[in-house]
């Protein structure tokens, strides 16, 4: 009954597989009913833990006590990181864990550590854009305005189009930074949701397929030497649809 690919299914659900390995699992799921059933159960568990189980929040009294404790604590001056923390972090950075993993699992690839940084970067950029005034540098629903503006300011010319008919209204563009490099951001509105589509030059080619961070879904894809990612709090299916529309535009016969 149990299939020996069961651990792949969990890693797939957890967004820990690279695009190739994720695709292989998707193919496998089409033909293996045991793994398909396992995936449904794991998704039900996840739904239960996120929606039914208690998420314990700090009450205001604790928040106030923490602030009082911080007020009392003398300014630390040259504070030192405790030894256990320093070594844990150095270990993480040095890829000690990755080596341990490679030994334990040879048949699929975990994403490189860099993708963690990337996901954090993009989530932070998205949060900044929706929390501040800096969502849009150039406000326009006309791709003939947004595209040249991005080309001039971000040195990139990603596909830009208004997909109002398909539910994604182009609202503008801005320049942001991803992974220390300049990125062209196209901003869409889908119902009440803002979707940021980042594009940046990436010749290394290794991207995660998708990720979820702080409740935001992120879908990645690569087209030529450009990496793309769409991030929003909308459903992941909607992001995949937008990415499909944009990918079609990059095809040789796609209309630009």
């Amino acid at each position, binding site marked *: 009954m149990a299939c020996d690919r069961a651990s792949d299914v969990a890693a797939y659900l957890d967004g820990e597989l690279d695009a190739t390995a994720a695709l292989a699992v998707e193919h496998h799921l089409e033909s293996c009913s045991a793994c398909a059933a396992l995936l449904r159960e*794991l998704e039900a568990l996840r739904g239960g833990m996120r929606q039914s189980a*208690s998420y314990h*929040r700090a009450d205001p009294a604790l928040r106030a006590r923490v602030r009082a404790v*911080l007020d009392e604590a003398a300014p630390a001056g040259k*504070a030192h990181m405790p030894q256990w923390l320093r070594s*844990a*972090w150095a270990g993480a950075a040095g890829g000690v864990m990755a080596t*341990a993993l490679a030994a334990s699992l040879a048949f699929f690839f975990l994403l490189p550590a860099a993708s963690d940084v990337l996901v954090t970067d993009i989530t932070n950029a998205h949060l900044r854009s929706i929390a501040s005034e800096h969502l849009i540098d150039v406000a326009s629903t006309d791709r003939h305005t947004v595209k040249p503006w991005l080309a001039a300011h971000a040195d990139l010319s990603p596909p830009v189009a208004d997909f109002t008919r398909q539910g994604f209204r182009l609202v503008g563009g801005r320049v942001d930074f991803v992974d220390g490099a300049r990125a062209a951001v196209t901003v869409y509105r889908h119902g009440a949701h803002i979707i940021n589509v980042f594009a940046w030059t990436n010749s290394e080619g290794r991207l995660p397929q998708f990720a979820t961070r*702080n409740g935001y879904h992120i879908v990645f894809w690569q087209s030529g030497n450009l990496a793309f990612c769409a991030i929003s709090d909308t459903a992941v299916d909607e992001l995949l649809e937008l990415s499909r529309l944009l990918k079609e535009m990059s095809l040789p016969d796609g209309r630009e």
Partner: protein
Amino acid sequence: MDDRRRRFETQALPHLDAAFNLARWLTRSDADADDVVQDAMLRAWRAFDGFRGGDIRPWLLAIVRNCWRSARADSKRRGQVALPEEHMAMTGEVLQFTGPSPEASAVRSSEGRKLDAVIASLPEEFREVLILREMEELSYREIATITAVPIGTVMSRLARGRAILREKWLGDVESEAHHGVR
């Protein structure tokens, strides 16, 4: 408020809920979770200069977990020399599973309460990885760093924890559904 404090307020304090949630699931008691979180935030504040940027939440949660483990080790050590009554009180406090308040229970589904009880009954090494993965949505790598084990161990603990949950929670949900039909 000086600059360092302001940075701590804007970077670390927004994750107080995440810190409390982890502490609450580890200690299984509101009072113990309060103590652990206060201790952890103070340690984080002292170690803040050593934080090298990136996502602060896993860094903070690692401190929370470490505070819980050292608090528990302390109470065990003290427990060995404590008077019988004190010893009872102490272990009683640590082991007691304090459920949600009655008001909270009234509006929560029985399914949620049951799931809470099942999660609380999991051995700690499975409970912590499940909380970090499913509630905090951390990556295997981040969980490995927080729990100080290799990624392979994180994966096997997740698998084991999920298997127990499936059996104890989904199994019951399904059998209840069958009873309902009959």
